[in-house]
């Protein structure tokens, strides 16, 4: 499977523990170019850890991760991979001392070495794309949660990543703001962005996901598609239990 050029992410038999806690237990997963993959599962099942391993915010104990043909082993590869992978966090993690515009231009200038002018042009385009062109000069503290998360998405997109990782991007948001963020994500999915999304927003999952993975106790216990996403179709008892809570 490792020679397939269609696979942009290849995770092979990855394990990761934190002290005594086994966060990932022999996880394998491949994601194809342009595919939207959703990971769901109960709290503590290792979803975030899996996502964070893909851009090496966590190191793996064993197993192998290859992103766009680059193995995540040496330090210099890690920076290369991070430049290709954008990440959106549950808590936004915008830089509070910088304006929305500066949040989006900073990494463009210091990592991509773009000029101030070019970086700002790109930032303005992206702010328009996520629907808040008028907030360029606002500080994160002056934005609503939904607006902050959209700036965070624009910030990641400014690096022109090939892959976007989303870790529960809407779970810290008030209900009326969830849609504005999901809409941006749906647009991205339609444009053919490769996305790995941890989310329990079933509307988004059904509209955008190609494949859905259930995680439990650090393992992927089941794989399905949005079409066959129903209680009856799931083989595993624990998946059914979990689904019964999130499906309406």
């Amino acid at each position: 499977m490792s020679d397939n050029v269609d696979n942009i992410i290849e995770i092979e038999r990855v394990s990761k523990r934190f002290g005594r806690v086994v966060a990932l237990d022999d996880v394998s997963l491949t994601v194809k170019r342009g595919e939207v993959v959703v990971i769901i599962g109960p709290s503590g099942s290792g979803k975030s850890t899996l996502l964070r391993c893909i851009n090496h915010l966590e190191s793996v104990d064993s197993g192998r991760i290859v992103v766009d043909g680059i193995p995540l082993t040496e330090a210099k590869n890690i920076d290369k991979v991070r430049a290709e992978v954008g990440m959106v966090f549950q808590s936004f993690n915008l830089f509070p001392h910088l304006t929305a515009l500066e949040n989006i231009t900073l990494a463009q200038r210091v990592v991509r070495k773009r000029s101030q002018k070019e970086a700002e042009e790109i930032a303005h385009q992206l702010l328009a794309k996520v629907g808040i062109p008028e907030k360029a000069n606002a500080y994160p503290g002056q934005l609503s949660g939904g607006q902050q998360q959209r700036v965070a998405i624009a910030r990641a997109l400014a690096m022109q990543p090939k892959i976007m990782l989303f870790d529960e991007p809407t779970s810290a948001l008030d209900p009326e703001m969830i849609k504005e963020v999901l809409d941006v994500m749906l647009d991205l999915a339609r444009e053919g962005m490769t996305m790995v999304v941890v989310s329990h927003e079933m509307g988004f999952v059904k509209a955008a996901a190609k494949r859905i993975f259930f995680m439990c106790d650090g393992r992927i216990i089941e794989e399905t598609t949005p079409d066959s996403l129903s209680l009856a179709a799931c083989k595993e008892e624990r998946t059914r239990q979990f689904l019964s809570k999130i499906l309406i």
Partner: protein
Amino acid sequence: MTPDEIRIKRITITATEEVKPLWERIDRWWLLFFAVLLITSLLILYRPDPYGRIFVFLQDGIRVTMSITVVSFLLILLVGLIGGLGRIAKNPLIKGIASIYVEIIRGIPLLVQLLFIYYASPILLRDFGTKLIGLWPSMANRLINIKLNPFGAAVAGLTICYGAYMSEIFRAGIESIPKGQMEAARSLGMSYFQAMRYVILPQAVRVILPPVGNEFVALLKDSSLVSVVAVADMTRRGREFMASTFLALETWMMVALLYLVMTLFLSRIVAYLERKTSFVR
């Protein structure tokens, strides 16, 4: 919040800003500073003998005290930054060295450190030089004939001592920034040092500004200790004046007032910067 609530909140905020009289907005501690400044000036102008004489005699010392404080402080900031980064380093060797430095230096009184550097370290260097004479004669001779410059020794002593405390301030400041900030920066492809420089430190500066400012004021006062290592700072000049005139009360009154003028002024500047740079998270 509904748009209405937001509007009401905005109105109340602007209202309170407008209603507040000038008297409320200025920092009233400035009055204490001006009072002390006034008393000192009046003493110098209207009682030139002895206060004017003392002031003239102390002038060189004031300059030395100021330059020692400023030069040391710049070096202390550098040591504090390096030490603070060392304390949070992943590399156990770097972390170990930084931690041992901080723990040892914090356990020795500043006065003893100054005496050690000025009087004891040349002996150590000379001993080391005699051992080195066969191996590297030119270096050995340099060490044997070493003569410490009092100003340099004082700056070194203050920097080493205060650098340890400053390292702890920097460490705490950096650690107070949520982990997600470093992760967001790294996930955008920034290196550790780029993330520190552009994301973490600019935020940490706002956190550490008050304690760093307090260190500066404390340093100004502690610089009086360098008078024991032959530096002619304000305190030493005061002692010299007293020795020749026996005007103990007047001399130390003047010295105390001059320190007070400087520290009260600096404290107000620190308080001002603190208010200026606070921001909503």
